[in-house]
């Protein structure tokens, strides 16, 4: 596929991500931070986000599995996740985190467990979408197109 076609595909895909609420304005901020000095900034940050989130989700699963549920701890993790997701513009994950924290404050175990599932699901979705996005960018680069969007 030629670079122009791929580029169009990328734009459409990105637009879709925005429209479906996976990403928000903050992601644009991220993209603005990417320049010649930092050509892979977005990927780096998002990868870090993936790593961090996977760790956090792991911690959350453990924490929520405890008999003596430490809601403070859970809340701390969710707070972290909320902060980082809002920083990269992962809107849907962030919003789920907000709801999650509310249930955390209410000490509603069932709702928290449900929220964890939703966050995991949202995160998995986002991850696959972002991977697709990055793949497209790689393909554009490989096809000789300009870097970034």
């Amino acid at each position: 596929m030629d670079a122009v076609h791929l580029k169009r595909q990328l734009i459409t895909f990105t637009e879709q991500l925005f429209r479906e609420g996976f990403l928000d304005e903050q992601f644009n901020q991220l993209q603005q931070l990417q320049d010649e000095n930092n050509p892979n900034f977005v990927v780096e940050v998002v990868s870090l986000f993936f790593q961090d989130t996977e760790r956090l989700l792991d911690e959350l699963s453990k924490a929520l599995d405890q008999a003596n549920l430490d809601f403070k701890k859970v809340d701390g993790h969710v707070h972290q996740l909320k902060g980082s997701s809002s920083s990269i513009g992962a809107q849907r994950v962030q919003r789920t985190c907000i709801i999650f924290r509310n249930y955390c404050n209410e000490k509603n175990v069932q709702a928290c467990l449900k929220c964890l599932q939703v966050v995991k699901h949202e995160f998995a979705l986002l991850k696959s979408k972002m991977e697709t996005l990055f793949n497209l960018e790689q393909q554009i680069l490989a096809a000789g197109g300009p870097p970034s969007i």
Partner: protein
Amino acid sequence: MMVSEMEKDPIEDIEAEILPSMWPEDIDPGKQFNIDKPGVDQDMLEEVTIMEEPTILDFKWLTELTDFTDKGSAQLAHLVKHWEYKQANVVRLLKEELDNLNRQRHEAELKELRILEEHRFEEERFCGDTKRQIPVLEDIYDSWKEAPRRKKYVIVENKKVEINAEYDTLMYWKQRAMNLEKLLEASVHREHILMEKLQESITNLEGQSSPVEELIQILKRADNFLHFILQNAPIVIGHQDKELRYRFIYNNFPTLQEEDIIGKTDVEIFTGSGVKENQEFKREVLEKGKPAKREVTFETDLFGSKTFLIYVEPVFNKAGETIGINYVGMEVTDQVKKREKMLKLREEIAVQKAKERELNKTIHITEETMRAKQILATMSHEIRSPLSGVVSVAEILSTTKLDREQRQLLEVMLSSGDLVLQLINDILDLSKVESGAMKLEATKFRPREVVKHVLQTAAASLKKILTLEGHVSDDVPIEVIGDVLRIRQILTNLISNAIKFTHNGKIGIKLFVIPKPSIASRGGNHLKSNTDQSTVMDNAALKEEKTIPRCHSNITQDLDHMESTQAPETTVWIRCDVYDTGIGIPENAIPTLFKKYMQVGADHARKYGGTGLGLAICKQLVELMGGHLTVSSKEQVGSTFTFVLPCSISPVCDNSDDPDDIPNIPEDDVTAGFFQFQPLALSSVFFPIEPIQERKLLSNKLNGFKDDSYMLFPASPSVKIRETSSPEDACSVIVDAIESNSEPKCSLGQSLHSDDDDAVVHKGIAETQPSNGNSEGALQVNARLANEETPTERQMPGKNKSSKKQSPRILLVEDNKINVMVTQSMMKQLGHKMDVVNNGVEAVHAVQHCDYDLILMDVCMPIMDGLQATRLIRLFEETGNWGAAMEAGVEEPFTSGSSVNEDTSSGSRKRVPIVAMTANALSESADECFANGMDSFVSKPVTFQKLKQCLEQYLW
């Protein structure tokens, strides 16, 4: 025992046939008083013992009654009729019997006659026609035989005499005569038997009971039945005459003898409540002549507390006049009790239900209100961020070159913006207090310092010629424990209020200790438990006690430790008066003064502006801390707002314990009891200050007090006493002050020009008046020159420009890696480098080792949050030492190198701008950020725009 066995069959038969009942018919026979026929159930009553005592009867009266009342005579008449009927029956029976006997006798006579005739015929035959028969007689005889007979006592045999001898022989006649003789003999015998029977019958009749006896029996039976039935019934039956004297009473549980009752009235017999009512009721029935029922509760010595259901009916004589009453009373005490219990229960249930409904409604309303407040708070927060942007930009704009009209417009814009911001801050504060989200913190603080700072700050932005003064009485402890931020907020609020409504004269704060007020008992229990340092009231108390250990466990533990080694802590009640000589408050406005959105009048609101929330917040805060806020005022004379607060006394001032702890705070500053800040209009011209500031002052002098530095002078007593209100006076004061001040300062080798930091000056003063122990040490501040700590600082973004020559040093305090990466990268693009630390403790460490030009501080962090870190940094800047930080658990900075800030000789620092980075609305509100000493905030996620704006504001 009476059982009527003597009654014989014949009578019984008759009864069965003729009498429908034994009771007189006028009492509706068959329904009220049916008695079984005796004999059928004779055994029943035989086995029952009936006590006859319960009935007490006045027999004479009974006769009279039966004689003179309709009922009585009717009953008697019926009994007579009944007896007559029975008598007639018996007569009929006897007649029948007699007839029978007569008939038999007649038969016998006929027979005899026939025998005689036969005999004669035989004689005639003997004479001539011997074979002649008499068929007529035989027929008659036959007809007799067929006649109906009721009783067949006698069987007459109709045999022919048989003679075996030959007719007309001697033998024949002889035999015949003998036979006839025998027949006659039999006949005579029969007649004799019949006669006997008749005699027996007659005797029988005579043995039959007399009617009176019979009636007695019947009545006795009825009486026995009545007794039997009423035996255990809690019933009293009685008859009383016209004067309500008892003539008859039946009471199964008699407590009184006959002579005690008969002939007496209720009132004469009993005493106690209910007796009179009973009597009155009976009298009423007697008078009205109509039966009635009523429940009467008796409370008598005789039978205690009992409730009777009483039925009373009048008794009439034949003339229709009432001659007495019958009454039936049934004891229904238990039923009444039960009924009342049920009634009570039902009532209670109804009340409960109503309460529940009410509660549900309240809960619903509360929920709604809470939700509304939450929305309001959230919205306020959301509005505040962009609004502060607008205001900030407008402020920046105001520093650019503008023409007069533009400037005026801008000023309107700024003041409106400020007002809206203030309003929103107030709303957030209120909603926090009301929702219980307001957390109070317990920290050690010095009341004198607080008073001084509040006055300083107020003086800095003062646009009127007013004297601000503060009196702190000697008995106020040097250090107490409380929520200093909130106390400062209250004071600031009250002072700014006072300034607003005072046009000339003075405004002041008076602080002194009072004995525990009576309301203290309300909050007393909180105060006792000072181990967790909370002095809170109301609902927040529990929350508070939970949150404090969490957020400030370090402090708490430290203080706990301290307390455990020292004398137990006590609570002092500190009263604070904030007085002014302003316009005062009309009496009718005082009740609504502390209500939300209330101002004295619409005129005031227009003239003075404001949100009308300030006092409401003050009141709520004071009450939250366990105190109370009141006001007294006189129009055109002034107002005094007074609040009383419980504060726990901090253990002995740290100075004595640990001399290194606060080495830079002069003794005098600690104990100073009087501060005065006087208006010094236009005097700044005379100030020997740095050229750059002088220029600024000159440029600003027309509109004000916007400068950001101030001078502090040790006032000579003469100066202090002078109440200067005119610019001229003020000038002279200043000159005096400078003259008196300059020398010691120089002698200490400290240059005024080395830094514009007030703390330097503080120190100078302190050392000129070394620990004189006189609490009257006074400080005087040039009110025209703003303190560096004032909010106006923000309005002067250009202030630091001169001092920042090389690239600024920025510290990012943030625990989230991603956020760090993004922020760092943004900062890089904006051309700045940045140090990064991950929590409050690290931030404090970083500040200990390096001077930063800007700190970006995340609010919510593990180990130590941004608010606490900011407070510690600010405390360091004010005091020049890290004592508080160490108390909070930050280890001592390693003092080996001169890089540690504490070691610098200046002793106090300049104020580094700290910008909070907040994530959500309520828990880490911008308001809280300001209260903790932050200068501004950016909401997360951080964007280029926000970052740039922030940098522009604080770095250039």
